[in-house]
C-alpha cells in the first residue's frame, strides 16, 4: 500500500519543519560533531596517539570480545524465540513475549546489578563460586552476562513481527512437499527473514559495544583488564585526558554512523522485500 504523494510544505508547515530540523541539529548533530571536533582538537597525531595506549587497546579488544560472544548468542536466541512464537501455539506465549521485552523497560543499571546480587561476593551464589574458584563479577564473564541481558530483545523484536506476518504457511507447504527440518529452515524460513535478521544483529552489535550502565556495575573498572570502550571513555575523561577520551568516543560514534548507514541501506532493500510479499 503506497501513501498518496505528500503535498509540498507551506506556511505553518515550514515553521514546524524548521523547528524540527533545529531541534535535531541541537540534540543529535551538535553532540556528534563535538565528539569529532574535540577528538581532533590537538591534531591528528594526538588523536592517533590515543590508540597507542595499551589500556585503550585493551578496552577496544575487550569490547570486541564481548560483542563477539553476546551478538551470536542473542542472534541464536532471538531466532529461536521468534520461530517458536510465530510458528507455534503454546501456553505461556504471552509471558515469553513480555520477558523478551523486559530488558527494554529495565534500567541498564538493574541489568548489571542483578548479576552482582546473584554472583557477587555476598550474592546468592557468591560463596559457592568462591569455593570453586570461579570469578564472574569483575571479569569478562560478568560483563558478557550483563551485555547479553541488555541486548537480549534486539534480534527477537526485529524478527517476531515479520515472522508473525509471514505465518507458517510456507513451512507447512514445504513439509507436504517432503522437506525435512534442515531444508525448511535453510531454504524456506531463513531466506524470508535474512534482511530483518541482519538488521537485528546490527542493532544488537551497536548496543553490545556501546552499553555503559549495566557493564559499569559488574566490571569493577580495572584498567586494561575489565574496562570496555565506553567505560574507558569515562576513565579518560575523569583523568582530564579529553583528547584521548573523545578519540575513543569517536570510534563508538563512528560505529553508530556505520550502523545507521547500514540500517538505512537495509530498510531500503527490506521495504522492497516487504512490498513484494504484501502483494501476495
Amino acid at each position: 500500500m503506497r501513501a498518496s504523494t505528500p503535498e509540498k510544505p507551506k506556511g505553518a508547515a515550514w515553521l514546524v519543519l524548521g523547528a524540527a530540523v533545529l531541534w535535531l541539529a541541537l540534540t543529535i548533530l551538535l553532540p556528534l560533531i563535538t565528539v569529532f571536533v574535540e577528538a581532533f582538537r590537538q591534531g591528528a597525531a594526538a588523536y592517533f596517539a590515543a590508540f597507542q595506549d595499551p589500556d585503550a587497546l585493551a578496552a577496544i579488544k575487550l569490547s570486541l570480545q564481548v560483542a563477539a560472544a553476546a551478538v551470536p548468542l542473542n542472534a541464536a536466541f532471538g531466532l529461536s524465540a521468534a520461530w517458536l512464537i510465530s510458528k507455534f501455539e503454546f501456553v505461556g506465549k504471552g509471558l515469553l513475549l513480555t520477558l523478551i521485552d523486559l530488558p527494554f523497560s529495565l534500567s541498564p543499571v538493574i541489568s548489571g546489578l542483578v548479576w552482582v546480587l546473584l554472583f557477587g561476593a555476598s550474592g546468592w551464589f557468591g560463596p559457592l563460586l568462591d569455593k570453586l574458584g570461579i570469578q564472574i563479577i569483575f571479569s569478562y564473564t560478568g560483563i558478557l552476562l550483563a551485555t547479553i541481558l541488555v541486548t537480549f530483545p534486539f534480534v527477537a523484536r526485529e524478527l517476531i513481527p515479520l515472522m508473525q506476518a509471514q505465518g507458517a504457511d510456507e513451512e507447512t507447504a514445504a513439509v507436504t512437499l517432503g522437506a525435512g527440518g534442515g531444508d525448511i529452515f535453510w531454504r524456506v524460513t531463513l531466506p524470508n527473514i535474512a534482511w530483518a535478521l541482519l538488521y537485528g544483529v546490527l542493532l544488537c552489535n551497536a548496543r553490545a559495544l556501546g552499553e555503559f550502565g549495566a557493564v559499569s556495575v559488574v566490571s569493577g573498572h580495572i584498567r586494561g583488564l575489565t574496562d570496555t570502550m565506553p567505560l574507558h571513555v569515562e576513565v579518560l575523561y575523569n583523568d582530564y585526558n579529553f583528547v584521548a577520551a573523545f578519540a575513543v568516543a569517536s570510534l563508538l560514534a563512528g560505529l553508530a554512523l556505520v550502523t545507521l548507514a547500514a540500517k538505512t541501506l537495509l530498510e531500503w532493500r527490506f521495504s522492497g522485500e516487504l512490498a513484494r510479499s504484501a502483494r501476495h
Partner: protein
Amino acid sequence: MNGRSAGLAVKDVAKRFGRFPALKGVSISAEPGEFLALLGPSGSGKTTLLRVIAGLETPDEGSVFMEGSDFLAQTARERRVGMVFQSYALFRHMTVAKNIAFGLSVLPRAKRPSRKEIAARVERLLALVQLDGLGGRYPGQLSGGQQQRVALARALAIEPRVLLLDEPFGALDAKVRKELRFWLRHVHDETGVTTIFVTHDQEEAMDLADRVAVLNQGRIVQVGSPETLHEHPVSAFVFDFLGAANRLPCRLAGDLASFDGFSAPAVIATGAPANTTAWFRPHETELSLEGPGVTVSVVSLVTKGGAVQVECRDGDGNGYEVDCARAARPAGLAVGAQMKLRPRRVFVFPEPAAE
C-alpha cells in the same frame, strides 16, 4: 478394516481441539483417480479432515489407509500428498521454477532426479498449468489465479499419491474462480491423480466433483454424486445447503404433500412424519394471479439472463424465492402484486428444519 482397497480409506476418524469436537467419527473412501469434494459450512470439519489425510493433524481415533498402507504411521513428509492451500503458500523468495522444483530438490540424493530431468519436468508442469515462459518470475509478480496454478504445479511435481486442495479458489474473484474450476477439472482428467477438494461453495463442488461428501458439525451427512444429492437429499440440512430453499408446513398423504386447498408431488425421505415441512426449490415454484396457493405479495423482481428471480412475502412475513423463465413470465407479475404461490414438487425429511 478397509485397508486393502486401492484408493484412500478413512475410517471412524475423530479429532477434538480442546473441548471442540472437529470430527466425530468420519468414514469416507476415494477410488483411484476419483475427484471427491468435501462440502460444508465453516466449522463443519472439512478442512480438519483434509489436514488429517495430509498428516498435518493427528486424529484422536480412527484410521487412514492409502493404497493399503497405514497413512497414520507415516509423517506428513513421508506421505507424498500434494497439498494446495487457500493462501497459495508459495515460497516468496524463489522463482516460479524453483517453487515447482522444490519437492524434487529436497529428495534424498539417491532418489533425486538429475538437474536436467528436474528442469524438464518443471517445463512440462508449466505447460500443463498454462504458465509457459513464466518460470523466472517471482510469486509476487503473478496474479492470484496464476499463483494458485503455480501452487498446483508445485504439488503435482512430486507425483502425489493423492492431491488435496483446501478452498483453493477461496481468495480469488468470481470470474477467475469459474475459469479455474473448469481448468482444474481438465488438469485432473489429464493427470488422473486422486483429488480431494474442500469447499464451502456448493456450486463449485457440484460442478467439479465425481462425488460430493456433505459435512455438518463434524459428521458426514451424505455422500453421493451431484445428481444424487440434488434428487435424493437425505436431510433438510443437505437440501438447504445445496441451494436456495423455500418451505411450507404440509401433511403427507401417500406420495402427495397437501397444503391449504392444494397439493404437490413429494419426494419423501424415509422416516418423515405425517405432519412436516415441505422444502422446495425456487425453480420448482409457480406464481399466478388466480387459483389455489399461498397468498404472497411480490417484494422484488430481478431479471438475470433468461430468468426472472422473484422475491415474495406471505401475510406472516415468511419470504419465498421463485425463479421463472423469462419466456414463461406469469401474467400480472409486478412488484407489489398479490399472487398465489404453489410448489410444483416438494421434498420432505425426517428431521425438523436445520437452522
